[in-house]
């Protein structure tokens, strides 16, 4: 349906039109600053432009690929500039999970999300909280240890164990 007759620039623009709001949401969530997030968003699409050949449709969906670039760029930016990041203490017991945006589910792979959620639900609360802080706030082990008031080694154990459990839970049904 959408053959890109007019050249790659149009293709990039179409990609931007379809995906920029989602990717901007991802950048903004990690960076908490519109200006920084917009700078990163610009970098993301220039990276997409340059690295287009690396996208392998057999191994990744376009959305997963794009979100991965946006996440990596945002986290790198967060680290490099020592930007203020979410550091308020988190108490696992009082965590309020993010509500999933409704219409958005149809955009990405809702199945994979549902499967992941089911597996996350099987983790201990403190493990979920730690993973959430890392994934959504771009926190390091050190940040998370501070936020949850536990020794660094404990935080590493929690997260590594949680990742192992997640993998074991996801594996049997993975495509």
């Amino acid at each position: 349906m959408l053959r890109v007759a007019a050249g790659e620039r149009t293709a990039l623009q179409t990609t931007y039109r379809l995906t920029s709001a989602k990717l901007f949401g991802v950048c903004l969530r990690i960076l908490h600053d519109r200006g920084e997030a917009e700078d990163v968003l610009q970098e993301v699409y220039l990276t997409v432009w340059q690295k287009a050949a690396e996208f392998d449709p057999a191994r990744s969906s376009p959305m997963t690929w794009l979100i991965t670039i946006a996440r990596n760029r945002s986290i790198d930016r967060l680290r490099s500039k020592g930007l203020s990041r979410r550091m308020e203490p988190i108490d696992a017991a009082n965590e309020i999970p993010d509500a999933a945006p409704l219409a958005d589910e149809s955009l990405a792979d809702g199945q994979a999300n549902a499967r992941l959620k089911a597996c996350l639900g099987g983790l201990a609360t403190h493990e979920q909280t730690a993973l959430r802080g890392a994934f959504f706030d771009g926190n390091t082990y050190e940040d998370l240890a501070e936020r949850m008031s536990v020794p660094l080694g404990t935080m590493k154990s929690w997260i590594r164990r949680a990742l192992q459990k997640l993998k074991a839970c996801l594996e049997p049904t993975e495509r």
Partner: protein
Amino acid sequence: MSETPNHIEPPDDDTLAAEFVLGVLSAAERETVARRIARDRGFAARVKSWQLRLVPWSDDIAPVQPSLDVWTRISAALPPERAVHAARARFWDSLVFWRSLTVAACALAAVCLVVLVATIRQPAQPVLLAAIDGGGHHHFIATIDPARDTVAVVPAAYVADPTRVPELWLIPPGGKPHSLGLLNADRTVTLTIPAELRRVARNRAVLAVSLEPPGGSATGSPTGPVIAQGRLTNL
């Protein structure tokens, strides 16, 4: 898994890949891992697997519209049109890529349309939507109109099988599949939801498409492969 807080082993490759994707590593560690991904295919594959596992969590992040001038800035930073043709990337030629994005666009359009219809028709019952996704070649968009008890199914991407027909199934959470009828590879099909199934055609129920002999499954359950499925969601 017997580490004590003060004695942590260095992570194995798979753990390191997971930590990179999750985003817990420091700047220096991230740089080391990024270099490793570039030269070590086996390790890169581990990272890719973890991306597939964890990145779907991003579905929970709501889209936010960036300022209009971001595209202007991107466009200005691109090299002149002529210079790039030599390095023509197969990404842009990938039918799967465009098909998936088109599906995303169709889903968005469907959402907009349905929201519009739902807004106009008062009092509106919640309309339900499902992207029935089976990967690049099998993708349908279904909308349930609770006022009429119908489900409309658009084949967004479907490669027809000459010997078998696509059949639509409704699967309530924890329940068995119930047939809703046969689909068409080329056009939108609107099916009436049987009275006994209206109760279960709700949010979180799953719609699935299987391939069946002409005329549909004779047993009342899917007999052929399930090629796509998707969960109903409220708008």
